């Protein structure tokens, strides 16, 4: 091989290898299925009826924390909430509206968190659940920057409380968010928050948005519903009944 040939071949390799690599990873980015239970025919969504949600009740928050070993360090800077309750009030005092609202991951159809994740640790399953692969997350926290709903958290500290031995706790250094209790849904059970709420107020409902006869589809059809900041175009799959404001 002469020098010219060598340079030619090196050039082909230098250009070709990255191209081949990109073509190799391109089709699997954005959404990918990881579980045998996640199917494209089903699309999980949640309806939260704020008329039913009790103001001082945090049973959903507690059950979620217990089920998923969500870390509580007693310091709001590092506490993790897959679901949290906030009270909102109208900025116009004359209106005087006040409401207690559960906030959780919206499992967007176009999730900005999954778009920015450099290692595809956050991805949307075929059944619409946005989930974090904690074994892959490198802890760059770009998803927290990209999520416009402040629904993403980070394990800044080691979590020493392992309530539920049937579900793994996460090491420090990885991102966190609600996953609709995917492990329970895959087993045919309801997410911990929904199950708990149904025994108390019945404000949370989960179901298949693709099935027009499902409870969630019926609730969405029969009630005026809103999603958080629909103007972002992220297509959230958590619907609120009775959410005040614009």
């Amino acid at each position, binding site marked *: 091989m002469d020098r010219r040939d060598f340079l030619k071949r090196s050039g082909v390799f230098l250009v070709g290898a*990255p191209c081949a*690599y990109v073509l190799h*990873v*391109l089709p699997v*980015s*954005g959404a990918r299925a990881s579980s045998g239970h996640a199917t494209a025919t089903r699309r999980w969504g949640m309806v939260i009826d704020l008329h039913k949600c009790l103001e001082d009740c945090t049973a959903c928050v507690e059950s979620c924390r217990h089920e998923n070993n969500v870390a509580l360090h007693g310091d*709001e*800077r*590092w*506490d*993790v*909430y897959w679901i*949290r*309750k*906030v*009270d*909102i*009030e*109208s*900025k116009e005092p004359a209106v005087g*509206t*006040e*409401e207690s*609202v559960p*906030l959780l991951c919206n499992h967007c159809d176009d999730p900005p968190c999954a*778009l*920015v*994740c*450099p*290692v*595809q*640790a956050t991805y949307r399953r075929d059944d619409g659940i946005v989930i974090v692969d904690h074994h*892959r*997350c*490198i*802890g*760059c*926290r*770009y998803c*927290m*920057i*990209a999520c*416009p*709903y*402040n629904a993403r958290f*980070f*394990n*800044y*500290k*080691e979590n020493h409380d392992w309530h539920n031995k049937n579900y793994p706790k996460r*090491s*420090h*250094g*990885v991102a966190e968010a609600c996953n609709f209790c995917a492990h329970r849904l895959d087993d045919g059970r309801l997410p911990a928050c929904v199950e708990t709420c149904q025994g108390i107020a019945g404000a949370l409902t989960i179901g298949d948005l693709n099935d027009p006869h499902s409870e969630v589809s019926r609730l969405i059809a029969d009630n005026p519903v809103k999603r*958080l*900041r629909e103007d972002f175009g992220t297509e959230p799959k958590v619907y609120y009944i009775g*959410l*005040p*404001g*614009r």
Partner: protein
Amino acid sequence: MDVKFKPIDGNTPRYWTLVGILAVLALAGAWSTWLMFKQGIYLSGMTNRVPWGLQIVMAIYYIGLSAGSLVVSGLYGIFGKAEYKPFARMAAYLAMLFLIAGLLSIITDQGRTDRVFIEPFSHANPWSMFSINPSLYIGHITICIIYLWALFNEKYRLTKVASVTVVAWAIAVHSGTGAIFAFTPRELYTSPLLPVAFVAAALSSGAALMILVITALFKITKRHLDLGLIVWLGRLLAVFIVVALYVIMIENLHRFYLIESRHAAMYYLFGGWHAFLFWGGLILVGSIVPALILFKTKTGTSLRWILFASVLVVVGVWCERYMIVIPGQTFPPELFPGMEIVRSPLNEGIAVYNISFLEVLQALGVLGVIGCMFVLGLKYLPLAPAEARTVGESQMLKHMMPDAEVTEAAVSAEN
């Protein structure tokens, strides 16, 4: 133009003390990173509301500083100003080091540093700016190495090709870095102008740093440097400052003019101590004062004033980088338009970010690593030109400052 290169002697106790101090800084940074890796990054000042802190500020600052090579290569590779070629080796070497510093800052900032060398390669997401940018940085480092090799071996054609490639690639690097923020749906991040502003600020900080490094090196090693070269770089720096200022002004005017983003703009411009960094650090100290110094003929042709202005720009651009990263996070997203959150287990309002001591150590550590590489590079690699003279210097200087004594000015640069 025939240029001789001469590594510095580096045998004095002062030299080895400097290497020692930089090595200690590097070790301190490594220790701090190890501590955070073992115990968690709560040891930094970062929180759930402010997940990006000093390391990201430093990373984008370093990336911007690497633009010195872009300026020098552009000057002789595209505009044919051959008198700047002697600085090309040092500029390319510095660019490489700053990109390494940027990458190091990002790597040491990760929650799971142990996975950084595996997952981004095995499961890359080609749509993520955090995948695209490290690829651009690594590509830039590679191009710098090829460019350096061509310069060391006096390969004329390869040097020419590489110098143009460096310019194009560096613009992609700086735009891409701005896009990390600009392409996310956060009120104070989203902006098509941010990548442009990033390039403009990178050019000013890169040019300012080149002025400082070149002058310091020539002064310390007592080599001849014609003032005209620095004066011309200073003029260029002044133009970069004005362009950056213009883009930043338009970006903020746009945010302020639109009703939906006015609240965020008010917070950015006046809502807290970061506003001092913006008005005092970036606008006054980092832009207006140095631009006035550099545009005024008397000060713009005096080495001391040019150096002073360069220091101000380097400080001002750090403030600009801080303003890109932090206020966009401390300002809360509006989850419920028309409503406000009155009770929550978390802080849903304006967040606070306090830089921790360990974060500062990490940042100093990165500085130590590249500082060591730079100082050792000067000793062991033929980077520094033995002298730098302008082509037809007297004509250029006379045109710029008809009243000044050219010979005196040139001599003052040597002292």
